[in-house]
């Protein structure tokens, strides 16, 4: 009944899976707060509050166990052909050692999932996803010379995110990663232990993801913690990650959108254009699943647009002042649907939001009727102050909310 026993001596009485890093993470999780992620136990936060972990991501380096990600290995002569058919991006231009982010859709052009594609070799790819996709991958590879393998539990992974992440890896890796560009991947070793490092992440900061053999997991964790100490390495949980990803305006499945495979009604489905992922749709690169529908949609404006909003402070402060309080800000990110109005009619809804500690702004990601979605439009955001509903102005602003130069730059 207790899974993960083989990969770790440490056990927990849980029906969920435990990551190869659980032996370490469980011992430093002072709050003992866990979330469920892909059938695994994942730390919500290690401290009693997530502040320190959040600031580690933004000012030092946060270390996150991202092993629960679904990972599929796609090999074979037709692997490129297959991926070109599966995802909306043009895989032909993906070089060996490159990583691409993409969504993939059903035949009606509605998004099923989103993730990254690593090109490890000419005919060797790794696809990551938020949800299980094996059936969909196999279904669509019918008749192709391609070998699809679920390696979710054969690869463990850590994300090292934050301005000091490069220095930490350089102090350990046998190869320097100074030249590793945004969305590229290399193989290297940490004290003789082989790892792959991709310059990717879910925080919108300078950061890397490290792909590891599960049996090496604890050794890699220990090396990182030991060497990273001088650079402020800090294990970080999902609460800190959630704020970071909202600041970076990165969408989350089941929170900001529903997979078209689970949507019970058509209205719950979204196209890439409606999720701000229009840039990943390469209509000129040939046929992929959903191509026709998306080509059509591209000609006519989509009904929805996915935007960033900033809840305006002065008006918010006034609402709270009326009841004798200072603004009561959400401490952690929220994931509710919050109505947005224009001239008293509802024109959209926000799906996740948070107080951004680094921007000092109350921000949210929202679906808005495209007629009301241009920059600087003022919408009304529904908020409850002392149990009573109010409307307070929120402005549509540019995303990502937070986009430091270091995210994509390399040292001189």
């Amino acid at each position, binding site marked *: 009944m207790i899974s993960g026993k083989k990969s770790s001596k440490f056990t927990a009485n849980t029906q969920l899976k435990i990551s190869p890093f659980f032996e370490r993470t469980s011992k430093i999780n002072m709050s003992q707060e866990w979330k469920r992620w892909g059938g695994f136990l994942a730390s919500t936060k290690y*401290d*009693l*509050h997530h*502040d*320190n972990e959040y*600031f580690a991501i*933004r*000012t*030092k380096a946060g270390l996150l166990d991202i092993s629960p990600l679904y990972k599929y290995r796609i090999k074979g002569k037709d692997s490129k052909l297959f991926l070109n058919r599966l995802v909306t991006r043009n895989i032909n231009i993906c070089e060996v050692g490159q990583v691409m982010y993409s969504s993939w859709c059903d035949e009606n052009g509605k998004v099923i999932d989103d993730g990254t594609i690593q090109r490890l070799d000419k005919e060797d790819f790794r696809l990551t996803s938020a949800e299980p996709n094996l059936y969909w991958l196999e279904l669509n590879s019918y008749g192709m010379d391609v070998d699809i393998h679920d390696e979710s539990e054969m690869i463990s992974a850590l994300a090292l995110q934050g301005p*000091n992440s490069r220095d930490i890896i350089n102090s350990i890796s046998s190869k320097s990663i100074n030249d590793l560009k945004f969305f590229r991947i290399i193989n290297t070793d940490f004290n003789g232990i082989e790892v792959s490092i991709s310059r990717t992440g879910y925080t919108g900061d300078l950061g890397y993801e490290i792909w590891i053999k599960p049996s090496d997991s604890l050794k890699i964790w220990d090396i990182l913690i030991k060497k990273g*100490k*001088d*650079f*402020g390495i800090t294990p970080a949980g999902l609460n800190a990650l959630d704020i970071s990803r909202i600041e970076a305006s990165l969408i989350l499945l089941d929170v900001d959108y529903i997979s078209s495979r689970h949507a019970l009604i058509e209205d719950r489905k979204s196209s890439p254009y409606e999720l701000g992922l229009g840039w990943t749709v390469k209509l000129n690169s040939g046929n992929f699943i959903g191509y026709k529908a998306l080509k059509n949609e591209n000609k006519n404006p989509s009904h929805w647009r996915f935007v960033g909003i900033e809840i305006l*402070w002065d008006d918010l*402060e006034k609402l709270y002042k009326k009841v*004798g309080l*200072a*603004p*009561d*800000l959400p401490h952690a990110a929220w994931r509710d649907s919050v109505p947005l109005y224009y001239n008293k009619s509802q024109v959209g809804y926000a799906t996740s939001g948070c*107080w951004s*500690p*680094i*921007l*000092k*702004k109350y921000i949210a990601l929202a679906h808005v009727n495209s007629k009301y979605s241009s920059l600087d439009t003022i919408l009304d955001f529904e908020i409850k102050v002392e149990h009573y509903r109010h409307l307070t102005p929120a402005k549509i602003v540019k995303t990502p909310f937070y986009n430091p130069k270091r995210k994509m730059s390399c040292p001189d």
Partner: protein
Amino acid sequence: MSRLDKYDAIIIGGGHNGLTAAAYLSKAGKKVLVLERRHVLGGAAVTEEVFPGFKFSVCSYVVSLLKANVIRELMLPRFGLEILPLESTFTPLDNDYLFRTSDYDQTYKEIYRHSKKDAENYTRFGPLMGQVGMAVRPILETIAPNAIRPSINDLLSLKSLLGHVKGLNNETFEYLCKLMTMSSADFLDEWFEFEPLKATMSASGIIGTFMGPRSPGSAYVMLHHYMGDIDGSFRAWGFQRGGTGELSMTIARSAKHFGAEILTEASVDKVIVKNGEAVGVALENGNEYKSDIVISGLDPKLTFLKMIDESDLPEDFVRDIKNFRIRGSSGKVNLALDGLPNFTSLPGDGPHLRGAISISPSYDHLERAYDDAKYGNFSKEPYMDIILPSVLDPTMAPPGKHVMSCFVQYAPYNINGGWDDNKREAFGDAVVNTLSRFAPNIKDLILHRQVLTPMDLEKTFGLTEGNIFHGELTLQQLFSFRPAVKWADYTTPIKNYYQCGSGTHPGGGVTGSPGEMAAKKILKIW
């Protein structure tokens, strides 16, 4: 001098308040020049690499009171504002410790361990201080009216403040009165019994002040420190990434963004006064700059007694400024360490090293430290407020090394026989010895030591007598009396000469408030 050299406003001093005023005036379209004597901006809010690889927030070392509207209006996050939370206060004792964090339950249990009564009262005390803080806020945010010869506007703002005070509930009003008048020790005695808790809490009532915890008036200073304003909600202390100087730089970047010119190593000698009006400034190097108005971010003593000839000022005003109390009482010891201190009572690394560390085991410890100062000596066993910036921000020190900032009281400016190198070192020794009582490994860790006496603070940062608040925060020098009655609204007896430093309402700390309010007042009457 060419026409181009004429400015709308010249600001003397590139401290954080001067820069704040510069940013607001530039934002309003004025042509502004800031003149800073030193090579670095920030005044007392500077970061300097004192020893190779070791950076220190040399003087001011924490951020708590920086106003949320200043952050928003000057768009400081865009220019580099990154405030890391200091979440806890650790009071090491000889055989035990007190460790308060931002976690309600954890702190309750920790205090409960020492006193059940205190644990209960502590849960009531926080919200009450929050309420009093909210109640004081409108007072802090009002331009201090002229209490002697009020204008219509003064009367209106007084009326609205009276209305506000009348609207307070009885309990808040009662505690506001108590906090305005009592000593922090007496005030806390009404609530708590565990001595280290009381002493540590009372310590914020003596910071920057020539008073002991048992001196009446210290409760207000404690309240002043309770009004921490991070993220627009009432919260604890923070540390700017890169040190406090980086905070000044974010304000400077904002000011430049709005068009301000900033010159460093430009020491102003005098304000040029013609026919009772300020018309510009003369630098020590002989250069002169003309402007419509001149604003001083210096403390009141320098603003008036150094920058202006006494003969240009009314006699009673000169007397008021001379009487303005600005006694220096604190020193700063900055240590470059080879590793982390190991506290006997709570050994090893841990969250207690991420917050404030307070050397305040008892009232007697603090009061005795004050006694030394009262009679003209530095404290043999001083009170200290310590932080380890490199734990929060590893870029402050080389990998594996650390910097430790010790704010120390007391060190009187007027020490018997005057400060000299020997006394400075003896003062540094007293600090290290006191520290080693609680963390014995500290002596072996010290790689470098910088000791700043009040005399050094005066010389380096231009703080008269080394007073970190530009004048003590005592009732007789607050609000309409700061720095002098009739001149508490940022104006001065000299036409077109204004003040915007911590010596004006609402006082010291890295708040940006005097700079902001002065700029807003000036823009209103310009």
